[in-house]
């Protein structure tokens, strides 16, 4: 068994080496309220969630003063850090000065909210905060709350919107708003009985828990005190916060950006501490999420967690240079992507993608050809790994290379451990066909099983591998187009078949009718052959729009422990302050900022600032209509579909229903070699 290496960071992001991208929350927040002059005519004022020129941001506008830095350096854990571990160009003091921010928080103020994404960690300098609602398995950013039970914990987010009644739907069809972006006042103002309210602390926008005292009395919570840190896992590994943290009393916290955290990890002890924490609390959870490992007992999972390494490649802020990158040719893009596994190398680990995107490729002629793409949960080259486990005397090298597209986090399980602990416990039928073929005895059993069963669909249901094989797209150019444009981020991408779309705009009309007169997408976007990938929110697996929302208005209806949730990212307009953070972060430009008006067409103005209210809007997959997207339902020609592009199979299946074999050249088809991608 190999000795686990510490956290391996192959990312090029280093503070000081790279300028802060303009899409940062601070930049966008500065634009809040600058929506221009109000429309002519009457103007309606409303109490609104207040926008601020400097909401709770992750990157400090000015940084810490020298005195602050000296003070912070006297506190844990900074007083224990080894100054010689940091480079002369970027010493500890400079990291603290540029990558941290001191914040005062007041009782009831929500510091992080469960389910939200963040890119900064919080270190408590003074006072206490409470961790509410830890995740069901007791995982959280703070080890002290691991023992908390879950049943009595209150949920911290508002419930998803209720399904619209038939009467409401009929009214929407009949009564069309006269003005675009029409809203009722109750739609743009936080409800009086809501679980959170928006306020300000030191001129910064902040969320406050409405019934904080009652929660502290009734609900279970864990207290965190000075020297304790939370939110670092969410910041560094692009995962949602597992718990809500609320200030119990007036406290001082130091907000550290993820870039700052990475620099601080140059100190070996600090790095080891964070790594141990991740390995103990988070890695087992991430391992359990993978279908390959779902039958393993806790003891085996713990062994794997102890021996595995998490490797990061590419840039966490891949979306900052998305537009520039997508303009490059596939060859130029591939040349810039960090290589995770080289073609022809010896498989030493089983690589499971934890987050991000990977490009599987082979050398083809004078260049490199994409054969598949990987996303969260996929396994790279399982076939070679299993083959080598079964026949160690005749090892097979990797037939493909793996590259990081944007960012890629992989969990590497040593192959010896996989052979000893994992492989014997996986049901053979769960493997994809290309791996099943490696087990001769299974093939005999499978052929017998095929005769059992009532119908074809029954047989298919019985024999479908749990670790489904997701073959590469039949068209190489289409696959490179999808990867190059990062469309594989979208589990619900809007795809339009241009050979069937008549341009009738029924889809946009249906969307507008069901969304108060606003269409939430544009019938345009990048096109490849007969497929157009329209500008509609794809409900990304890596939802960068959710990072940095100062009021938590943008949320995802998701929980790993509750499969009934929709996973849709929605924006609560009542708490949106129009800071444009989400719209600026979305690399696909699928979030629009709109000036809302009342039914008479009069602009809503913020009482405080006197400026016209801006609200962020995006496609919500019609969650309040039962999650049945009306754009799809309204298309009379089967031209518009929503497809999960995180896997190549759904798009391939879609194409097969439309493209005859002879016309495959339309999508730039080329014969692909067998793909090692597994999903």
């Amino acid at each position: 068994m190999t000795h686990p290496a510490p956290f391996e960071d192959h990312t090029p992001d280093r503070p000081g080496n790279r300028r802060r991208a303009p899409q940062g929350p601070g930049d966008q927040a500065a634009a809040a309220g600058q929506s221009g002059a109000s429309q002519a005519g009457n103007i309606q004022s409303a109490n609104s969630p207040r926008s601020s020129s400097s909401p709770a941001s992750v990157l400090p506008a000015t940084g810490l003063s020298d005195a602050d830095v000296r003070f912070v350096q006297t506190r844990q854990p900074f007083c224990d850090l080894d100054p010689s571990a940091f480079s002369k160009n970027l010493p500890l003091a400079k990291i603290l000065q540029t990558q941290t921010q001191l914040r005062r928080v007041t009782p009831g103020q929500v510091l992080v909210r469960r389910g939200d994404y963040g890119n900064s960690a919080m270190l408590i300098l003074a006072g206490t905060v409470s961790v509410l609602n830890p995740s069901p398995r007791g995982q959280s950013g703070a080890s002290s709350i691991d023992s908390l039970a879950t049943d009595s914990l209150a949920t911290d987010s508002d419930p998803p919107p209720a399904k619209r009644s038939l009467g409401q739907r009929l009214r929407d069809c009949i009564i069309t708003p006269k003005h675009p972006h029409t809203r009722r006042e109750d739609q743009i103002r936080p409800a009086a009985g809501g679980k959170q309210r928006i306020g300000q602390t030191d001129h910064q926008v902040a969320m406050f828990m409405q019934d904080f005292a009652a929660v502290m009395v009734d609900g279970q919570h864990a207290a965190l005190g000075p020297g304790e840190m939370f939110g670092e896992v969410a910041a560094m590994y692009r995962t949602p916060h597992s718990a809500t943290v609320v200030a119990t009393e007036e406290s001082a916290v130091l907000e550290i950006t993820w870039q700052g955290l990475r620099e601080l990890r140059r100190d070996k002890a600090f790095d080891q501490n964070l790594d141990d924490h991740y390995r103990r609390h988070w890695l087992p959870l991430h391992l359990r999420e993978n279908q390959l490992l779902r039958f393993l007992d806790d003891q085996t999972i713990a062994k794997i967690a102890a021996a595995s390494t998490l490797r990061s490649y590419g840039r966490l802020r891949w979306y900052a240079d998305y537009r520039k990158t997508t303009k490059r040719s596939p060859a130029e893009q591939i040349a810039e992507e960090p290589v995770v596994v080289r073609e022809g190398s010896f498989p030493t680990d089983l690589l499971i993608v934890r987050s991000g995107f990977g490009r599987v490729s082979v050398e083809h002629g004078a260049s490199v050809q994409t054969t598949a793409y990987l996303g969260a949960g996929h396994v790279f080259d399982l076939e070679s790994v299993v083959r080598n486990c079964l026949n160690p005397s005749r090892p097979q090298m990797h037939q493909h290379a793996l590259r990081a597209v944007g960012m890629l986090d992989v969990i590497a399980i040593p192959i010896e451990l996989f052979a000893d602990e994992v492989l014997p416990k996986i049901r053979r039928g769960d493997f994809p066909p290309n791996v099943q073929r490696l087990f001769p005895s299974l093939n005999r059993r499978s052929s017998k099983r095929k005769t059992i069963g009532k119908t074809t669909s029954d047989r298919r249901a019985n024999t479908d591998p749990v670790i489904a094989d997701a073959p590469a797209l039949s068209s190489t150019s289409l696959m490179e187009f999808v990867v190059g444009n990062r469309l594989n981020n979208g589990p619900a991408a809007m795809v339009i078949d241009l050979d069937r779309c008549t341009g009738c705009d029924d889809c946009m009309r249906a969307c507008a009718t069901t969304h108060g007169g606003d269409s939430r997408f544009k019938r345009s976007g990048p096109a490849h052959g007969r497929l157009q990938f329209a500008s509609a929110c794809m409900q990304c697996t890596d939802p960068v729009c959710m990072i940095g929302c100062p009021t938590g208005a943008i949320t995802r209806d998701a929980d790993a422990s509750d499969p009934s949730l929709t996973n849709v990212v929605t924006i609560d307009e009542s708490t949106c302050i129009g800071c444009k953070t989400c719209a600026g972060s979305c690399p696909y430009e699928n979030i629009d900022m709109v000036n809302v008006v009342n039914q008479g067409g009069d602009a809503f103005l913020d009482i405080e600032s006197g400026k016209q209210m801006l609200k962020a809007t995006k496609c919500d997959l019609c969650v309040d209509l039962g999650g049945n997207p009306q754009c799809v339902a309204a298309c009379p020609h089967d031209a518009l579909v929503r497809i999960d592009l995180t896997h190549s199979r759904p798009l391939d299946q879609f194409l097969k229903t439309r493209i005859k074999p002879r016309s495959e050249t339309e999508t730039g088809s080329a014969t692909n070699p067998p793909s090692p991608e597994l999903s």
Partner: protein
Amino acid sequence: MSIVSGSTKPIARPPVSLAGRRIRAALITVIASAAMAAVAVWTEQRLANRSTLTGVTLTTTLVILIALGIRRRLPGIELGSMSAWTQTHLYTGIFSAVVYVLHVPAIVAGGVLEFFLSATFLIVSASGFYGVYASRSYPRRIRLAGGQDGDRETFLADAKSVYDAIPIGPAGDVLRQQYLNQHRSYFENPRSWWFAFYPTKNRRERMLADLAALDRYLDPPTRESSAAIANLIKGRDAVDFSAALRWRMRVWVAVHASLSVSLLCATLIHIALVWMHRS
């Protein structure tokens, strides 16, 4: 099967093979038509009135056909997808043509109302077949032309910037003159209404030929401007072509829907008259 943690729940139905769906629907239509014909013949052999059966069936199909327009105006209500409704509309239309043949003594009836009724039915049916042809072939033509996403204003702005960038000199003067004489009006004005009905490449080819003929008077830098103008002409023509085909489809929808409503009204009058004179 989606196993990606954090992925959206499956929201789309499994993709249906369009060819398979077409074959199934056509088969059902043929069987229904044959059954209808058999029942009509059987009814006649029993000396009953075949027209009553076919008339009621025809009226029912008309109502089903008209219902597509109502469904279209009710998004958000769970009445099935528009795609399913369109397929039903399409094959019910074909079925109704068969029932019409079984119902009428002559394809084009005599008498004012009956003539209007049969003529409208035939026109609506023909229009329906044209709609199927147009909706299946135009999108592909639009895509191959490459003008689905452009707009006139962009081309006008691009043309102006190319014009401004034409090099100074005698060769540039020649190209500028050509632009002012021929191209400016092309970029500034919309195409004629006739182009929407019958889009041709005549004007585009004429302008490109004139531009090519001008080539020998130009020097290399000016030729680059000339090539840029030629590309803009082609692009603008593609946009106009796409707009023309889409406009044609919109006009067809309006005409088809209006005639369908007229047909339903005439049918109701026809039913009332038949009822009044049923003895």
